[in-house]
């Protein structure tokens, strides 16, 4: 037993819950207050994580390009993102001449909210989960498609022919890459036998060979398919047609300025973290690990996956739209489904450990 085990956070939350009971809340009030508190804690944590990720992307991109990135605002520029946020708040909120003002107004808000909602079922550590729904991963898949709605709303509400085209094209991309993503997640579910995130993590307990990524032959394939499909979901290079359209015709968020743009921007980074969190939970063993506390392992693994995504962005050129869709429909989907069939057959024939 090493001293680090003492840093597990579950006892802290149990103590807080008992404190609330002692104060006198009971019944539904207790449920509401405890869930609201947990959600606020997760929201606050994720906001900090988003700011950290923006800073980290700039440092990673700088070092890949053999330069330093932000260096002036604090030690190695750590509060650069806060300053950028302040600048965006002070920017003029450009009013778009459109009849559908409500659509234009709500699109960034929906994107922002849809980015945070999946975190209700993500296990941050041992016993650290807001709500252990027994349909955990299905809930996440259902909720992440809200992003598509916000893209289409942004494209439509901008009252701009090219923003609409860009929005529709990115919606097509996101929808087509949902299919291989779901197929690769199903591969994991076949083996865990349950949709609940906590159960999926528990199946990977023990030695790290139990992690799904090491369960050959379907594990690595499913992981790679998931990472590719999720990069496309998050609109990152090499699939960043919606963002790169700004070179020529407008992307879906060209008419947004100031805080509205900041919401889209932060939503993208939270999405990236979601991709990492799901990959960690499903494939990399969740919060399992030796010596360090479980929540620290979770963050280390997630940030590793996010780092991988950032390296993709700064290394590869961009795919053309028809090549992107061809890649999804002609290559990824057959591979993902073949993998799923293989996994199903292996489970049926009990050829696994």
């Amino acid at each position: 037993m090493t001293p680090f085990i003492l840093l597990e956070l579950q006892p802290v939350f149990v103590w807080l819950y008992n404190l609330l009971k002692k104060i006198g809340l009971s019944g539904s009030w207790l449920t509401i207050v405890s869930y609201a508190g947990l959600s606020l804690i997760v929201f606050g944590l994720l906001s900090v994580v988003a700011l950290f990720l923006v800073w980290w992307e700039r440092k990673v991109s700088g070092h890949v390009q053999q330069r330093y990135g932000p260096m002036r605002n604090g030690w190695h520029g750590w509060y650069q993102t806060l300053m950028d946020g302040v600048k965006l708040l002070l920017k003029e909120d450009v009013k778009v001449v459109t009849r559908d003002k409500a659509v234009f107004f709500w699109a960034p808000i929906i994107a922002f909210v849809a980015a945070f909602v999946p975190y209700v079922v993500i296990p941050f550590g041992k016993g650290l989960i807001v709500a252990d729904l027994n349909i955990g991963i299905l809930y996440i898949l259902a909720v992440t498609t809200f992003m598509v709605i916000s893209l289409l709303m942004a494209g439509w509400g901008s009252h701009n022919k090219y923003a609409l085209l860009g929005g529709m094209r990115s919606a097509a991309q996101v929808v087509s890459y949902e299919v291989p993503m779901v197929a690769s997640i199903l591969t994991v579910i076949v083996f865990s036998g349950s949709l609940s995130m906590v159960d999926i993590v528990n199946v990977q307990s023990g030695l790290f060979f139990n992690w799904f990524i090491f369960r050959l032959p379907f594990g690595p394939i499913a992981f790679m398919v998931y990472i590719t499909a999720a990069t496309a979901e998050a609109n990152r290079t090499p699939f960043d047609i919606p963002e790169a359209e700004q070179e020529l015709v407008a992307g879906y968020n060209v008419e947004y300025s100031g805080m509205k743009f900041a919401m889209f921007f932060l939503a993208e980074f939270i999405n990236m973290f979601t991709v990492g969190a799901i990959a960690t939970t499903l494939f990399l063993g969740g919060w399992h690990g030796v010596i360090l506390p479980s929540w620290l392992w979770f963050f280390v693994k997630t940030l590793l996956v996010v780092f991988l995504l950032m390296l993709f962005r700064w290394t590869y050129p961009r795919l053309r739209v028809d090549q992107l869709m061809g890649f999804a429909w002609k290559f990824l989907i057959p591979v993902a489904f073949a993998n799923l069939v293989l996994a199903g057959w292996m489970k049926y024939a009990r050829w696994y450990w």
Partner: protein
Amino acid sequence: MGKLRTEEFIVNMGPHHPSTHGVCRLMLTMDGERVVNVEPYIGYLHRAIEKICENRTYPQCIPLMDRFEYVTAMSCDYAFSLAVEKLAQIEVPERAEYLRVIMLELNRIASHLLFYATTAMDIGAVTPFLYGFRERELIIDLFEMTCGQRLTYNYIRIGGVSRDILPEFVPKCREALNIIKGKLSDYQGLLNENPIWKARTKGIGVMSQELAVAYGVSGPNLRATGIKFDLRKDDPYSIYDHFDFDIPIGQNGDVFDRYLLRLREIEQAIKIIEQALDGIPEGEYKTKIPFRFKPPAGEVYSRIENSRGEMGLYILSDGSTKPVRVKARGSSYNHLQVLPEVAKDCLIADLVATFASFDIIMPEVDR
């Protein structure tokens, strides 16, 4: 259920571009995703250089010719000086010729590095942009050491060069060339075998040999189609016949060939500079020309191999201190003219890649 009515619409790829091609406006007529027609609108950078040259003496025209194509300003200076030297039959000392060749080839490397940086960025890979410019800094530091300027040099004058090189130029130049040689394999390793890069550049923007010659395309764009034509070997000027170098050619005339060809040309340019550095003779660096320089009456058209292609200068002189007509011919003018033919029926992303691979610099088009 009749046929769906589709309509072509016009997209304006406006004067401002994210990468440094310059200010060029392309009106695209599009049918859905496909580009049906491209019509370039130029003139945003027209500075009337030719008209101003008619009002300046011959040595005063050289800083103007720097701005004719500022990415390879040494070549522009040299083209003008060569034309005047042919007109007036001026002998240039050998040391000056060696220095000129070194500067021209260094400028060629710098220009091709800029091409690599901006083309990769247009196709989506942002990191090579930083790599290309980092190497370009080494060369520009050499230029700054020699003539004090980073972009528009005013160094190659009529009759020679404007000042001699410093003693530390030669070792620093060798060091810079060694660094660039090492990094070239990095650049090629990053993109050459990358499947995304190959999917975006192979078979895109193909230009046939007949089209290229008919439209006056020259330089690496012509060599990528397979025609082995380089003015340094086919119509030699200066002392290029003293050096031993190859002319790389491509096979298909697509974007990938044009990109790879320019990287190979960097290697050949390094070879030339190393040979030149080994053999710089001692001597004068400039022939003295009179203050009121009056070449004899006559006309001359001289052409050199710029990084982009053939740069030509036509000078008509009537024996006075100012030229009667200076016509500067830049290769990007012809390349922009052939762009609508090459980019028929392609997607927008292909058009962006093709436009980037032609290495068009707008000041050459607009003058």
